């Protein structure tokens, strides 16, 4: 059948066009789809934060770069909104040099919307090179690693840092990352200093981190754009105002297109008889 051969030899530019339309149309039309019930690991993060008392400290690590922003930025926006609404103190750091600007702007944006005050309700300490050494160092003394905030203010003068000396004074650490840093936070802050940790990650990293979720080394896990959309739903954000939910519509249609393409490709592969030719070769 010629149609199977045609399908198998389909010019990949048609696939590119299909994916582009699948991504762009839902964004432009603000088309939203019901996303179903939130994933249990995301609910675990939400519940853990809900159980914290106002005034407790949550440390956020903005360990992602612009390449993973579409997945991680909506997660971070939703979580920081939740923390500030819940009157928790937010202290942010960054072990990724590009993450420091993203984190600073995000805190300033959400803080501005909610009337939170920089230095009182939240502070961005900024980037430090050294990765695991920085994580270990904060276990001994946060002030020694970060004597000043990112903008140069001594942290000793900031009300938000009052009584915050080490991880013992931090109720939860949430790492938003697209690389290996969640493993470093788990190994060095979690195991060495008993810091409670949650992570917001890209979907491709999920299989790597589920074992830590099961073992209790992570209190919860926000997984990809779906995790962001789930968190926004838990916060009761309107779908049209929620970047995660809006993005999920594009992702839903794109995933569906890929699944249809894979199934069609397999049908064509067997129907055209190419599997027999390959077996003989």
């Amino acid at each position, binding site marked *: 059948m010629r149609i199977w051969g045609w399908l198998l030899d*389909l010019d*990949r530019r048609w*696939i*590119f066009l*299909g*994916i*582009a339309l699948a*991504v762009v149309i839902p964004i432009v039309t603000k088309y939203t*789809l*019901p*996303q*179903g*019930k939130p*994933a*249990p690991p995301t609910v675990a993060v939400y519940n853990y934060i809900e159980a914290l008392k106002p005034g407790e400290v949550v440390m956020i690590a903005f360990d992602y*770069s*612009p*390449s*993973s*922003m*579409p997945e991680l930025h909506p997660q971070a926006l939703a979580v920081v909104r939740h923390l500030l609404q819940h009157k928790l103190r937010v202290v942010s750091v960054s072990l990724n040099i*590009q993450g420091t*600007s*993203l984190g*600073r*702007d995000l805190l*300033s944006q959400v803080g501005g919307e909610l009337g939170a005050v920089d230095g009182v309700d939240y502070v961005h300490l900024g980037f430090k*090179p*050294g990765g695991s*050494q*920085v994580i*270990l*160092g904060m276990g*001994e003394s946060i002030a*020694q*690693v970060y004597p000043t905030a990112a903008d140069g203010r001594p942290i000793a003068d900031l009300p938000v840092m009052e009584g915050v000396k080490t991880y013992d004074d931090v109720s939860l650490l949430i790492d938003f990352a697209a690389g290996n840093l969640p493993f470093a936070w788990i190994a060095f802050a979690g195991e*060495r200093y008993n810091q409670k940790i949650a992570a917001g990650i890209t*979907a491709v990293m*999920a*299989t790597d981190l*589920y*074992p830590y979720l*099961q073992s209790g080394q992570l209190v919860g896990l926000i997984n990809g754009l*779906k995790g962001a959309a789930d968190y926004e739903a838990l916060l009761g954000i309107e779908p049209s105002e929620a970047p995660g939910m809006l993005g*999920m519509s594009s*992702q*839903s*249609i*794109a*995933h*569906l297109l*890929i*699944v249809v*393409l*894979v*199934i*069609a*490709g*397999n049908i064509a592969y067997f129907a055209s008889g190419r599997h027999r030719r*390959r077996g003989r070769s």
Partner: protein
Amino acid sequence: MRLQIPLLITFLAGVFMAVQFFVPHDLGVTAYTELLNWGRIIGAFALVLGIHSLLRTHLEKIRRRRHDWPYSMVAIVSFVFMVVIGIGFGSDPGSAFDWLFNYVQVPLDATMFALLAFFIASAAFRTFRARSTEATLLLVAAIVVMLGRVPGSLLVLFGQTGVGEWLHSTMPDVSEWIMNFPSVAAKRGIIFGVALGSIATALRIMLGIERSHLGGGGGGE
């Protein structure tokens, strides 16, 4: 002596770090804190090495007029420009550096990564075939996990019918089960293997059996 002294330092540092983990004596904690400070300072030099490597690679490419050398020129000019703007005028919100980061680097970086979606779709269509039992299992699991992550797509496919609604509510649970059990079982085995390998490598380095970190191209014995 050029070999013995580094090996002795490596051995003593390794033993100290292992002992102080289990014996939280004040002396050990003080020394540990000091070592962490050293570590952070040495870690910062990774940036210097990175810059050196970047410049050397691209300057060499330009000097020898290798394939696509103009791109190396763009890389170096962009690097120098960002450094001058950042150091000269600061990187506070609203600064030129901040503007360049938000309106040049962020879109460029995001665009590069977004291209993956197109290539993955094309590659999946061409290569993801049920050629064997193992490949078929992988294919079915991948489709279930993919659809379980985007249950809304099932309503697009089947509409608001009984089947559509059932799949919409069930598929995320099946996807979560695959992630929680078969996937974690395999992953845990890999993690154990990597951990044991890391411990073995650490011991080999501490005992001087593995010496490649000393340079000179020498591997383990």
